[in-house]
């Protein structure tokens, strides 16, 4: 008889402290021992996680009104420009924004982390002044406790898969995928592989708008499909796309986050980015989902792209599994090439374990998607010229 479980049944077990919760890596051994059918009955929730760099990260802040009030038009936080084209004292600071005084050595990602750590941040704001907001300038300090709202809103995180990067040219390339050495000197990749959330629920059956997640050490939510969401990408037999496909927009209370799980990143000769820790609990609803959850690195493939070709569509040099990438070397046209990760497997594992504890011991129940994500979505390119 086929096992089927509902979110309600699993949540009831979580509330009673009786749910069997394992990390995606732990599931592998259970499936080898019990098989798919018995493992489906036995396991209730599988935790997944990732801790990788993602430029599409930022935070909304509301500073509160000064007296007399100001309609902030130009805003700087520690000399990092924040977007003020919102209501009078609302702002959005992007992680990738560099500072005016220290360049990429200090940017929006650093400001966000300093706020999370409770440190003082220097706020300067300017306005032309209006009858209702007469002040034209303010120079003060804020902390996360002195302001009203502070919430992380990341338009794109948690890529379902991502192509690895290499360089066939004769010069070193400095990219958001790290340093790429000339003459196929190395291959860099960015994913937690078999721990990565969207690789484990490839058709997003359990992940949609409203899904409750671990976000940088706090409770967060999936807010929307991420930007550049492409559910229509070609998939392998196991349902996993071979390149970047689905993404998530996520939201959470910055005031409750921990810099253990969110960190600034500086990529040489590229810019500022941010490592963001995300964990997603996936309920074992049936054996089809458990099969997806049990897919291992050896069965997850990605393309290796040539970043020396400065086009949006970069040529594929080879295809390889994450087991090969994680081994430290891959073979490209007979050449043994060193591989390096950019996503921290160490931190990803830690997040998967913390989330496992939240679900198993602290009653972190699972929120069914309030609305599913669209299927068959393809990416549009930006064309030059008139429509």
């Amino acid at each position, binding site marked *: 008889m086929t096992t089927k479980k509902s979110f309600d049944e699993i949540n009831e077990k979580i509330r009673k402290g009786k749910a069997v919760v394992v990390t995606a890596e732990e599931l592998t051994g259970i499936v080898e021992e019990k098989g798919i059918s018995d493992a489906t009955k036995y396991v209730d929730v599988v935790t997944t996680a990732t*801790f*990788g*760099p993602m430029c599409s990260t930022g935070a909304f802040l509301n500073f509160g009104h000064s007296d007399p009030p100001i309609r902030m038009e130009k805003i700087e936080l520690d000399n990092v420009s924040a977007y003020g084209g919102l209501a009078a004292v609302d702002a959005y600071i992007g992680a990738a924004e560099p500072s005016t005084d220290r360049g990429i*050595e200090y940017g929006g990602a650093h400001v966000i982390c300093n706020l999370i750590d409770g440190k003082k941040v220097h706020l300067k704001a300017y306005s032309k002044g209006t009858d209702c907001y007469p002040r034209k300038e303010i120079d003060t300090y804020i902390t996360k406790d002195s302001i009203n709202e502070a919430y992380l809103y990341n338009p794109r995180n948690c890529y379902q898969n991502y192509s690895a990067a290499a360089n066939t040219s004769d010069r070193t390339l400095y990219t958001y995928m*790290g*340093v*790429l*050495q000339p003459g196929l*000197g*190395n291959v*860099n990749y960015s994913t937690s592989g078999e721990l990565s959330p969207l690789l484990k629920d490839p058709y997003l059956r359990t992940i949609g708008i409203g899904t409750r997640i671990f976000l940088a050490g706090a409770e967060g939510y999936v807010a929307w499909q991420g930007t550049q969401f492409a559910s229509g990408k070609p998939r392998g037999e196991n349902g996993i796309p071979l390149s970047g496909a689905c993404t998530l927009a996520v939201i959470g209370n910055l005031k409750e986050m921990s810099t253990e799980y969110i*960190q*600034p*990143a*500086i*990529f*040489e000769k590229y810019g500022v*980015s941010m*490592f963001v820790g995300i964990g997603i609990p996936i309920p074992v609803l049936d054996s089809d989902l458990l099969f997806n959850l049990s897919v291992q690195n050896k069965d997850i493939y990605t393309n290796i792209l040539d970043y020396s070709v400065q086009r949006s569509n970069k040529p594929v040099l080879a295809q390889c599994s994450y087991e090969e990438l*994680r081994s*430290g070397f891959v073979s490209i046209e007979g050449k043994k090439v*060193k591989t*390096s*990760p*950019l*996503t*921290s*497997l*160490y*931190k990803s594992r830690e997040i998967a374990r913390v989330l496992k504890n939240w679900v198993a011991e602290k009653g972190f129940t699972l929120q069914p998607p309030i609305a599913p994500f669209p299927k068959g979505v393809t990416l549009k390119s930006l064309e030059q010229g008139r429509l």
Partner: protein
Amino acid sequence: MQGCIHCGACTAACTKGALKMEPESGTVSCDESLCTHCNACIRACPARALTYNQIRRPYVSEKRLSEAYEGR
């Protein structure tokens, strides 16, 4: 090593194959016989966890950087 997030970007920048990361523990180690002290790893570290003092002194071969340079 304080600030290390165990991502692996330093190993990508090392042109001599001197830096290696143990995938299970995330520990970075350096083979002294291969390291030329070019500092490419320092510049590539996105967390700015590596410092010049850690790199310019010779390593104990295959010893954890964090152990070799703790407290310096």
